[in-house]
């Protein structure tokens, strides 16, 4: 994994500090060319991995990158699935099964799986998970996707429910079908690491909020520092600036000083911010080569 991964929250009106700022960004990036301008800038600055949700707009971005074989060959995508609002809205309209049915490539699957009895067998659940993953992955066909993430909304829901096996099903499928490493996004890093250990997902890539403020770090900063030091996993830090509450240099100094953090995912809307983030991280992690 690269030291810096480029995130996509800024493109889709996600800002944890201000709805006003979120809307301004949403308006700015309504035009796909505005998004591409920033992605081009990131690419030119050497930030060539795009960690992105499976949003409809990302499908358009993937099409554009695919159309330029040289760019496609030098670009990496880390898909994060699913785009949760798509499911949440569908659930409000059609209920849970209706929503799942809507996103399955083969509508008949759910019906035939349920026809037999009034319960879903374990292997049906496994097929369901893999079918949903495949549906989300179609937009990345032909592109490099060496890491595939499961979004925190799903990871943390499954974690709370105690449905640990789903993590193993996801990990196995992603490895087998896409020759990719499974990644997990979470707001509950210490708790998730225990669950992944229980189901035998070894040395997992785990992306979580890691910032000086302790914002969205359930379990507390001290516990995060402990697992970073003691547990075997590949940490990716997100929300490093806590949505802008910490000045960039101070925020990055703290995170880069932690043991074992492998990558940092960040969002930016201008070349200047991308460059300065890269320069600070290059400087702080200079000894890593």
């Amino acid at each position: 994994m690269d030291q810096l991964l480029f995130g996509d929250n800024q493109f889709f009106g996600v800002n944890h500090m201000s709805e006003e700022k979120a809307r301004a960004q949403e308006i700015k990036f309504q035009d796909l060319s505005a998004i591409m301008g920033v992605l081009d800038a990131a690419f030119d600055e050497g930030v060539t991995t795009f960690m992105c949700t499976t949003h409809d707009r990302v499908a358009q971005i993937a099409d554009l990158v695919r159309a330029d074989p040289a760019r496609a060959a030098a670009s990496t995508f880390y898909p994060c699935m699913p785009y949760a609002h798509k499911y949440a809205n569908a659930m409000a309209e059609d209920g849970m099964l209706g929503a799942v049915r809507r996103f399955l490539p083969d509508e008949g699957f759910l019906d035939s799986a349920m026809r037999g009895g009034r319960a879903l067998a374990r292997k049906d659940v496994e097929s369901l998970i893999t079918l949903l993953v495949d549906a989300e992955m179609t937009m990345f066909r032909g592109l490099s996707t060496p890491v595939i993430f499961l979004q925190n909304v799903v990871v943390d829901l499954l974690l709370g429910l105690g449905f640990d096996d789903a993590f193993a099903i996801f990990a196995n499928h992603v490895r087998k079908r896409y020759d990719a490493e499974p990644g997990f996004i979470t707001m509950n890093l210490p708790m998730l690491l225990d669950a992944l250990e229980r189901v035998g997902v070894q040395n997992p890539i785990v992306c979580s909020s890691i910032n000086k403020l302790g914002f969205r770090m359930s379990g507390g900063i001290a516990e995060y520092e402990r697992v970073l030091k003691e547990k075997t996993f590949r940490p990716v830090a997100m929300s490093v600036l806590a949505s802008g509450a910490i000045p960039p240099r101070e925020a990055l100094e703290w995170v880069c000083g932690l043991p074992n953090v492998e990558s940092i995912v960040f969002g930016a809307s201008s070349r200047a911010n991308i460059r300065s983030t890269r320069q600070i991280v290059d400087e702080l992690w200079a000894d890593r080569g």
Partner: protein
Amino acid sequence: MIRVGIVGLGKMGLSHLAMFNAHPDVTVAGVCDTSSYVLSVLGKNTGLTTYTDYDTMLEKAKLDAVVICTPSVMHGAQVSAALDRGLHVFCEKPFCLDPAESDALAQRAEKLGLVTQVGYHYRFVGAFEEVRRLLDAGAIGTVTHVLAEAYGPVVLKPKGGTWRSQRTEGGGCLYDYAAHPLNLLTWYFGVPTGVSGSVLGRVFSQETDDEVTSTLHLPGGATASLSVSWSDDSQRKMTTKLTLWGTHGRIFVDRQEVQVYLRDTAEVPPGYEQGWNVRYTTDLTEPVWFYVRGEEYSSQVDAFVQRVVTGTTKGENTFRSAADTDLVIAAIVADAEKAPTPVGGAHPAVRKAPAPPARTGLRRLLPQR
């Protein structure tokens, strides 16, 4: 350890289940739903004990508390059955569709000394809590007017397949969305003395409302204008916001931030200054033990659990306080039946639309629309 049972495993029920199940002081001793598919998936993969019948769960699961996440039309009977067995109850909002039922259940629970809570999670959002502190401190003086808004994307087309599309089941923008800003208003100001000008408007739905507007007359003389729509997909997800004007300043608040403007006449609270002040959620939010969809959801679950553990009946969002919100909701439903005051007497004169002004300069060359 307290033993909790959860009934209704829809969108709210599943996330409540995740939070209660992850709570260190809780054992989830039973989950109940009518969907055998959902139950079979949970039963086989999580080891949770599942029930298709609510009464059977109450009878067999040896519960201390029950969490009710079914449509509101079912709340009354299910809460009542739980109280019969002396269980503490967390119930989703809105509490009951008939405020008389809300009041009766609140009374019974109070008499029995049971812990009750209703899922108005906005009271656990750091920014809205800060506003409560500011109002209690009189930071903006006497409040004269409030604009209470909530918008989001729930119903965006004519056909809906779930209970949410039926007002009789507890579906609709009033129950689902408007309940939240109304609950915040009763938290800040108490029960309104009256409502007027209420409109339950339709955008797409056939059997319930998609837009709600109303004027609330608050104790102390202030008014609040309510403007709510659940058919607004310019919002990525639900947003609830309040703007409050007072004799010494103005407050704007949503889930993310509090913007406070304090006049030179204001008694400035500690940490604030005259003029503009902004507080962000990153500063106002307390860390939680487990996060699934927002700190406020985790905090409200933890508040309930701690109250059950310590047997504290007093707290935020009791049945009594939710019954107050139900009273306001019922008043809006009744008020919306009333005819509007006619403009220009009983037979308003029909006025011709004025002709558009003649175009001058180069604009006169453009085609007329």
